[in-house]
C-alpha cells in the first residue's frame, strides 16, 4: 500500500533488540551518564513515545491503517491518569489499569463509526474524532484546566521528582520493554498474522473468510489500549496534561517516529521515537535555527533511508548473508530455484 516495509527477522529479529535493551538497562550505572539526569529524562520521554509508536505501528505497519487521530488514545491515557489522580486520589497503578479500559471502550465506539471508511478518509475521520476530544478537553476547563493544563502528581512517590529520576527511568524502560515483548508475541499470533493479511489485501482476506471489519476493530482496540498505556506513562513523567496531547500534532510526531524507524517492525518505530525525541530536543538546544536543521534531517532520512532505520539494519543483515552464501557455495547460478532463497 503506502510504503515500502522493512521486513522482520534477520539479526534485527532478536539479537538487536536484546542488545539495545541491555545497553539501556546498564546506562544509568555508567558514571557520566547516570549522573546526567537530563539525559535520563530525555530517554524517559523516548521510552514513553516508544510505547506510543509501537501502538501506532500495530495500526500502520501491521494492519495498514493510517490514522491521524491516534493521539486520541494517548491523550485518553494521560487524561485518565491525571483526572483520576486529581479527583479520586488514584495513583499510577490504578491509572495503568483504568486507562486501557477507557481506551478500549473509546476505540470500540470510535472504530465502529469510523472504520467503515478507508484510506485517507479514515485518516481524516480519525483526526476529526481526536480533534473533537481535544476541543472537549479545552472547553471543559473547569475540570481539565483547559489549555492551561492540569498538574498533579501521577508518578508513584518513589519515582517522582528530580531525585528519583533513575527510578522513573527504570519504570518507563520496564514498561516499554514489556510492551515490546507482549506486542511482538501478539503480532506473531494468529490474530497478528491476520492483521498482516488485511494489510496486504483486504479483499483477499475477506474472501478466505476473515471478518475484516472485526479484525480492524480489534487492531484499533489493541493499538488504543497500548497508546493509552503510553499516555499514562506520559502522565507519570510530566505529572501534567494539556489538551494538545490529543491533537493532531501529537499524532504527527508518532507518525514521523514510525516512518523514520521503519514501519511494520515494532522495534523500528520504538527506535524512531528515541531519535525524534532526542534529535528535536538536542537540536533546539544547539542551534537557534533548529527547525531548519530538523527539517533537513527529515528530508535526508526520507531520501536515504527508504525502509527507515530498521530497513537500514536489514540491508546490512542481507549484505552479510549474501557474502556468507557467496563464500560458502561458490558460484550458484541464479536461476528459477536459486532465486527462491
Amino acid at each position, binding site marked *: 500500500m503506502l510504503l515500502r516495509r522493512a521486513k522482520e527477522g534477520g539479526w534485527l529479529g532478536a539479537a538487536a533488540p536484546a542488545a539495545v535493551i541491555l545497553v539501556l538497562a546498564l546506562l544509568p550505572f555508567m558514571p557520566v551518564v547516570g549522573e546526567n539526569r537530563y539525559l535520563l529524562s530525555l530517554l524517559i*520521554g523516548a521510552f514513553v513515545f516508544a510505547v506510543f509508536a509501537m501502538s501506532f505501528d500495530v495500526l500502520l505497519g501491521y494492519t495498514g491503517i493510517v490514522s491521524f487521530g491516534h493521539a486520541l488514545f494517548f491523550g485518553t491515557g494521560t487524561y485518565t491518569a491525571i483526572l483520576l489522580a486529581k479527583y479520586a486520589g488514584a495513583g499510577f497503578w490504578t491509572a495503568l489499569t483504568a486507562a486501557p479500559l477507557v481506551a478500549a471502550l473509546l476505540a470500540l465506539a470510535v472504530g465502529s463509526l469510523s472504520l467503515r471508511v478507508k484510506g485517507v478518509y479514515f485518516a481524516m475521520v480519525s483526526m476529526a474524532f481526536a480533534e473533537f476530544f481535544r476541543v472537549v478537553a479545552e472547553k471543559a476547563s473547569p475540570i481539565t*484546566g483547559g*489549555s*492551561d493544563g492540569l498538574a498533579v502528581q501521577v508518578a508513584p512517590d518513589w519515582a517522582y521528582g*528530580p531525585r528519583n529520576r533513575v527510578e522513573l527511568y527504570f519504570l518507563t524502560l520496564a514498561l516499554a520493554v514489556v510492551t515490546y515483548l507482549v506486542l511482538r508475541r501478539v503480532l506473531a499470533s494468529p490474530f497478528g498474522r491476520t492483521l498482516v493479511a488485511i494489510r496486504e489485501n483486504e479483499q483477499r482476506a475477506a474472501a478466505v473468510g476473515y471478518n475484516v471489519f472485526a479484525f480492524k476493530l480489534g487492531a484499533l482496540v489493541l493499538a488504543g489500549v497500548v497508546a493509552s498505556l503510553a499516555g499514562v506513562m506520559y502522565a507519570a513523567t510530566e505529572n501534567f496534561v494539556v489538551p494538545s496531547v490529543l491533537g493532531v500534532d501529537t499524532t504527527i510526531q508518532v507518525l514521523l517516529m514510525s516512518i523514520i524507524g521503519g514501519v511494520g517492525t515494532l522495534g523500528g518505530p520504538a527506535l524512531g521515537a528515541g531519535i525524534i525525541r532526542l534529535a528535536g530536543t538536542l537540536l*533546539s*538546544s544547539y542551534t*537557534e535555527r533548529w527547525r531548519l536543521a530538523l527539517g533537513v534531517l527529515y528530508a535526508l532520512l526520507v531520501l536515504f533511508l527508504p525502509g527507515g532505520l530498521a530497513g537500514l539494519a536489514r540491508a546490512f543483515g542481507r549484505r552479510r548473508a549474501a557474502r556468507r552464501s557467496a563464500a560458502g557455495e561458490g558460484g550458484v547460478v541464479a536461476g528459477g530455484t536459486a532465486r527462491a532463497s
Partner: protein
Amino acid sequence: SGGGSRSAGEGGGGGGRAAEPIKIGVVTSVTGPLAGYADQEIKGLKLGIQYATGGTNEVLGRPIEIIIEDDTGSPDVGKQKAVKLLEQDKVHILQGSASTPVALQIASLAEQYEVLYMVDPAAGDQLTTTDFNKYIFRTAGINSQDALAGGKAAIEKPGDRVVHLAPDNAFGTSAQDAWNPVFEEAGGVVVRNINVPLDAKDFATYLQQVRDLDPDVLMVTWSGGNALKLFQQIGEMGLFDQMRVTTSIGDRASLQGLGDAAVGLRGVVRYFYTLPKTPVNDWLVAEHQKLYGEPPDLFTAGGMAAGIAIVEGIKKAGSTDAGKLIEALEGMSFEGPKGTYTFRKEDHQALQPMYYVEIVKDGEHDYPVPRLINELSPEETAPPVRVN
C-alpha cells in the same frame, strides 16, 4: 553549553580570572506564535543585566551567562528544556516564559530544584495566585493589573453596558473572569461574553452580534497573529463609531497593523516606549535603538526589569542561593524602565505603574501610538493577594 547559550558579557571586558559564572537559564517561546514576545523579552533581559551591572555583566565578581532554550510554546517541551538547564547546565536562576502554561510547569520545577524563577512576560494570574510557590518572582505586569487599570477607566457612567469579546480558550475566559468584575464594580453591566475560536477565519458574524446588542463598551481581549484582522473588521463594521472599543493594548506590531482603524481606541497598556519618563527608560530606548535599530517594545521593559531585579537581588543577597535570594527580593524595590517596582512580600508580584491611553496619530510615527491619558500608580493597580 552549545550555540544557544550566549554570554551576556560579550562586550564586558572580563578580568580573565576563571570566576565561576552565574548562569541564568531562560526558557521561552523562541519559535511559535509567541516568538515575537520572546524576542522582546530576551533583548530586554540582556539590556537589564547590562544596565544593572554598569556594563560589566558581572556581579559579585562573577560573569553572568545567559542560556536560552526554546519552549516552542508547549509546556512539555518547556519543562524538558528547564530540566536540561537545571541538570546539565546547572543554572542558578530560571527566567521566562512568554507562555503561561509553560511558566506554570517551570515554576513547579523551580520548586522541586529549589531555584529562583523570575517570571516575565507570562501574564496569567495563576503564577502569583493559585499556583504560587515561593521560588516564583514576577516582574511582568499581569492580567488583573490590566483589568484594574483598564476596567475602571472604561466605564464612563453607571449602567454602561459592556460586551466582552475574547478567544474561546483558557486565556480568554480567564481574562473575562479578571475584567468583568472590575467593570461591574465601576458601575457597568456586562451584558454578554462572546467567545470566538482563536483561529476564526472571519469575525464579521460575531461582530454582528455585538452590533445587535449595541453596548456602550466593547471590550476586546485578543492575542495572536489575527488580532490585526479582528480590529480591521471592527472598523469595517463601523463599531468604532457606534461604541467605545477598549482593549489591553498590544505591541508595536499590532499598533502598526491596526493602522488608522485604531485611532480613538482607548485602553490600558503595560508599556510603550514613549510613556515612562524615567532615566532607566531613557537609557533603554537609547541603547535599544543603538543595538537593534528600533525602539524597545511591549515586553522589552519587562525583560529589562527582570534583568535588573536579578542583579539587584544577587547583589543584596550576596549569593545565588535561592533561600538568600528570596529573602533579599521579598519586599525589595528597584528602579526599572517604568519607574519603581516592588515585589510584594505575599505573592512576589511586582507592583508597577500602568498606563491608560488613547490611540492617536502623532505625526512622528507612521502608525498610531498611545497617548497617555493617565498613569496609574502601582498601588492603584495592585491586585488583591490571592495566595492560599
